[in-house]
């Protein structure tokens, strides 16, 4: 529980390294967490080899949702899109390095949902994407 606000999470929340938008971009997707109104948009640039050339997130919400978005976006730069498609709940929890209850899990996974919905070109970010 005390880990929930580990320094690294607060650091990513207060000083995100990958906050912003990409213009132009190849992929852009945004969604809300209806429970809290957290909002996340993720923009990606993909190079000719199918690697993530650059990535940014934007939005607002609690420390968990924003820090996980920053960490997630940071972690996928340089990775093949095919690998990004395979990311799941465990990948995000590993990045955060904490355990989360069901309510805060939704905050943590919002960015992954948005990312995968964008990468798969879906109209909606559903919970199944991050199982």
């Amino acid at each position, binding site marked *: *529980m*005390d880990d*929930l*606000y580990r320094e690294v999470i*607060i650091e990513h*929340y*207060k000083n995100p390294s990958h906050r912003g938008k990409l213009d132009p971009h190849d992929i852009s997707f945004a969604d809300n967490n209806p*429970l*809290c*109104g957290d909002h996340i948009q993720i923009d990606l640039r993909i190079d000719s080899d199918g690697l993530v050339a650059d990535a940014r997130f934007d939005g*607002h*919400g*609690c*420390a*968990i949702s*924003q820090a996980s978005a920053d960490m997630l976006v940071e972690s996928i730069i340089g990775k093949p899109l095919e690998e990004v498609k395979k990311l799941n709940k465990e990948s995000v929890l590993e990045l955060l390095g904490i355990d989360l209850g069901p309510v*805060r899990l939704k*905050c943590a996974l919002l960015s992954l949902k948005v990312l995968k919905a964008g990468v798969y070109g879906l109209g909606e970010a559903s919970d199944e994407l991050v199982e």
Partner: protein
Amino acid sequence: MKLNLTEIRKDFPILERETRAGVRLIYLDSTATSQKPLSVITAMDDFYRRSNANIHRGVHTLAEESTALYEGAREKIAKFINASSARQIIYTRNTTESINLVAYSWARANLKQDDLVILTEMEHHSNLVPWHMLHAERGIELEFIPVTEEGLLDLETYKILLSRNPKLVSFTHMSNVLGTINPAAQIIRLGHEAGAVVLVDGAQSVPHFAVDVQSLDADFYAFSSHKMCGPTGIGVLYGKATLLESMPPFLGGGDMIKEVKLRSFRPNTLPHKFEAGTPAIAEAIGFGAAVDYLNGIGMDNIAAHEHEITEYALERMEEIPGVKLFGPSADKKGGVAAFTLEGVHPHDVAQILDRDGIAVRAGHHCAQPLHEKFGIQATSRASFYMYNTKDEVDLLVNGIYKVKKMFG
């Protein structure tokens, strides 16, 4: 009379619990739902142990007992809000259902396209969405009394809206976010002068100060048991008898009928006309016990205590750098302190306070348009009831300082 907090706190068994080892619960979320005194828990327990039977029409001993208890609670509730008769107390599930009852029964019989309904910008979703639905269904028009920067209703704009021949005015007696206690008698009188029927959302008022529906001259008045020391699952719609009598039934089924033929029915008299099916019997009895409990302490004493706590809380919280409080000063509001802390999301505030056993709520508190008005998504909200102490306010303040330090 000053409340004896030591004695009162003993009445609420839950206040003794710890949320984790060594951390006692500090419950500052009574606006969402209040805790329950032992007398309410016992009344419901006794009912199931001794008297449980379905009400009305039964002739056996238990059926008579349960009917008497169920109707006895209605009498108590009627007296509590000074309704002239218990027939005007319709049991519902909660405030939300009470408002929906008016929207489905009264409004669908009386409102047509372009008819004006006046609401306010500080309404809970339960007094917005039923009217949105009626707007979509038959094109009624909606207008809103604006909320000022201070968190009060702008009555000058209200007066202008009234010149447009509104059919209904529906507003909250007390805001669950700003805490604002609205001048209900004045709003109702002005509404009546313009020829409108007036519905009051009393979810936050009836639990916290004395409400007299007759002196207010309210046409409809809605409230929930669970916010006033009673159980969940039961609430009330009070209505003027002439209005209730003129309205078509709401749900159809058993109990709400006088006579049923294969192809027709005659509705029952008040209040049963609006109570179809087996109701929440134990909950009604618990609700009655809650009213007894509140009467025992005295609503004026409760209101005075809450005022003192709120004044203290606002004063202490205002001193914290980065804290922004919403709503008017303590003399114009009830025991609600909604706030933001600069640089920290309200959910994080609530989660970190929870480590110290402090239960506050974070989010839009079912008043999204109001938050939008103030340019925010969410607030953290501490709220107070008769069992809260100044010590608890101090712990809250210390907790907020801890949050600040963590995000420092």
